[in-house]
């Protein structure tokens, strides 16, 4: 278990402040945030590459402040993979074995195993500059995995890959976590990747943690405006929330929500895929009290689905519907549409990031 206890660090023009975080054994933990939020710095703090100014870093209750990088028995895979350009793929992978008490024979046996499982057999003699992005990533992973680290740290492992390798690499990481059962801490700015891979995570913004918890709860129950936007929440409107009723600023409409907290000056948000179309019996609304009639103002294709904007009085909604709705229900600008959404899909949150306690 890794525990970050009230860790702070100040750079010129940037600070990491009061970070409290617990990463449990066998977690696939994601540090999520936009570029420049401080998530990679946090990863390097865990690795020991950057010393922090205050707080404690504990691995299995042992304080790691004085433990040098090379003694931490963690492995870090960089975004650009940082393969040694003067060494072959095989020598890159075998680089660390001598420092971990792994005998040469054992090292070569592990190299064979990894080369087979990661498909590196044909490229073992090549130098890194002759490899594709996907191959480089697999070599960097093999170089870390051969040491059987207690924790694998991944810094934006998917962002430097071409789209053709992206899906393949995601599956590989998932497989590694499932098969080897190791703790993985991954830095990412892509919530889609995080949803697919991680079970827990923390959203970081400007050097502070906004929210930590299960990935599903981050996705479904963002508790701040920043997290809500980051996890893809739409239909965000300033609102006052009182006893399960949302009053949107500048509108007479009352929207029912199942959210508990009363917030005097907050926001509501609805995922576009949670808005259903009632016209012509397209979707079944259940007994939702939230029903609105309006006019379609814009329709934009987003590949597998269409983004539809509906104006209802002073409210503007964005919905995401299957492509076939264009054909089946004549979705087009200027046409009328009746929409609905359940109280459970109306999320409420505050304006400022909420600093979470220990996860």
């Amino acid at each position: 278990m890794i525990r970050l206890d009230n860790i702070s660090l100040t750079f010129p023009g940037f600070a990491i402040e009061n970070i409290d975080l617990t990463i449990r054994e066998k977690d696939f933990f994601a540090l999520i945030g936009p570029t420049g939020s401080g998530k990679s710095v946090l990863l390097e703090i865990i690795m020991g590459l950057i010393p922090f100014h205050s707080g404690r870093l504990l691995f299995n209750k042992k304080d790691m402040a004085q433990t040098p990088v090379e003694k931490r028995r963690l492995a870090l895979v960089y975004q650009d993979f940082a393969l040694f350009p003067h060494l072959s793929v095989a020598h890159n992978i075998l680089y660390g074995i001598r420092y971990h008490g792994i005998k040469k024979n054992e090292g070569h046996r592990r190299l064979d195993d990894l080369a087979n499982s990661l498909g590196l057999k044909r490229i073992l003699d090549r130098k890194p500059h002759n490899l594709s992005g996907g191959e480089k990533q697999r070599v960097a992973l093999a170089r870390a995995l051969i040491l059987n680290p207690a924790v694998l740290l991944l810094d934006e492992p998917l962002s430097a890959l071409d789209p053709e390798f992206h899906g393949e690499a995601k599956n590989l990481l998932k497989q590694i976590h499932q098969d080897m059962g190791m703790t993985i801490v991954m830095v990412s700015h892509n919530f889609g990747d995080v949803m697919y891979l991680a079970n827990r995570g923390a959203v970081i913004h400007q050097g502070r943690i906004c929210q930590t918890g299960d990935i599903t709860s981050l996705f479904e129950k963002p508790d701040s405006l920043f997290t809500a936007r980051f996890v893809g929440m739409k239909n965000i409107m300033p609102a006052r929330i009182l006893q399960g009723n949302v009053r949107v600023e500048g509108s007479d409409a009352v929207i029912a929500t199942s959210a508990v907290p009363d917030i005097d000056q907050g926001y509501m948000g609805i995922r576009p895929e949670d808005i259903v179309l009632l016209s012509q019996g397209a979707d079944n609304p259940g007994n939702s009290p939230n029903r609105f009639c309006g006019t379609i103002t814009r329709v934009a294709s987003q590949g597998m689905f269409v983004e539809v904007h509906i104006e209802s009085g002073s409210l503007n909604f964005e919905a995401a519907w299957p492509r076939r709705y264009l054909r089946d229900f004549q979705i087009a600008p200027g046409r009328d549409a009746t929409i609905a959404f359940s109280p459970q899909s109306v999320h409420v949150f505050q304006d400022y990031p909420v600093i979470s306690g220990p996860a």
Partner: protein
Amino acid sequence: MGRLFIVFSLPVILLLTVPLIKMTTGPSLAMLWETLGDKDVLLAIARSLGLSLTAGLLAFALGTPLSYLLARKEFPGKKIIEGIVDLPVMIPHPVVGIAILSLAGRTHPFGRFLSSMGIEIMGTRTGIVTVLIFVGIPFYVNTVKAGFESVPARLEYASRTLGAGTFETFRRVTLPLTWRHMVLGIIMCTARAISEFGAVVIVAYHPMTAPVMIYERFTAYGLKYSQPVAVWLILLSLTLFILLRLMSKSAVQYHR
């Protein structure tokens, strides 16, 4: 545009080549061979080469840690240190000789201290090597610093995360990626040292290095007797610089 650039480049190339071609083609082949038979000339050239190479190797030993610090670390006064390292390129070299003379001469306590330790600077090989390092070290430090800067710090971090300590990281990652720059730095420093005259002539007229001998023969016997020694020195320097260019080319290819 290209032609205009060629027209303006020509005077520079001519300025560099014509006097040297004139001088190297001046002495007859017979005279050049005869000069090679002069034991004093051979000794002076060998001394220049040997002491310059010694200065280059000492620059390697003393300048590598400094180059690494300047490339990798940020610390107060770094710009001042960088300025100091570049200083020998700017100041007139007789001034270097005078500065060392004033410090290491018998009239200065430091000079007397060195003398009591058995280290003589004035009129010795030690003195010559000292001034050669002084004038050559900027070339070594700046070349090797650029080499260290060309190695991403992430590679060193990656090595540390794989279990290697700082020394092992330097030995297995930094050194293999920068040794060509170090060889380049040694050649640059050595080449600069071979040509040094102004500082050497003040600290040690004897034992005589090749540039001092060229000057002595010129003032004592005239152009005809100084030219052959100069030709051999030029050929030596040319060989070194061609080697330098080949090395730098392969270093660039290596990092690509």
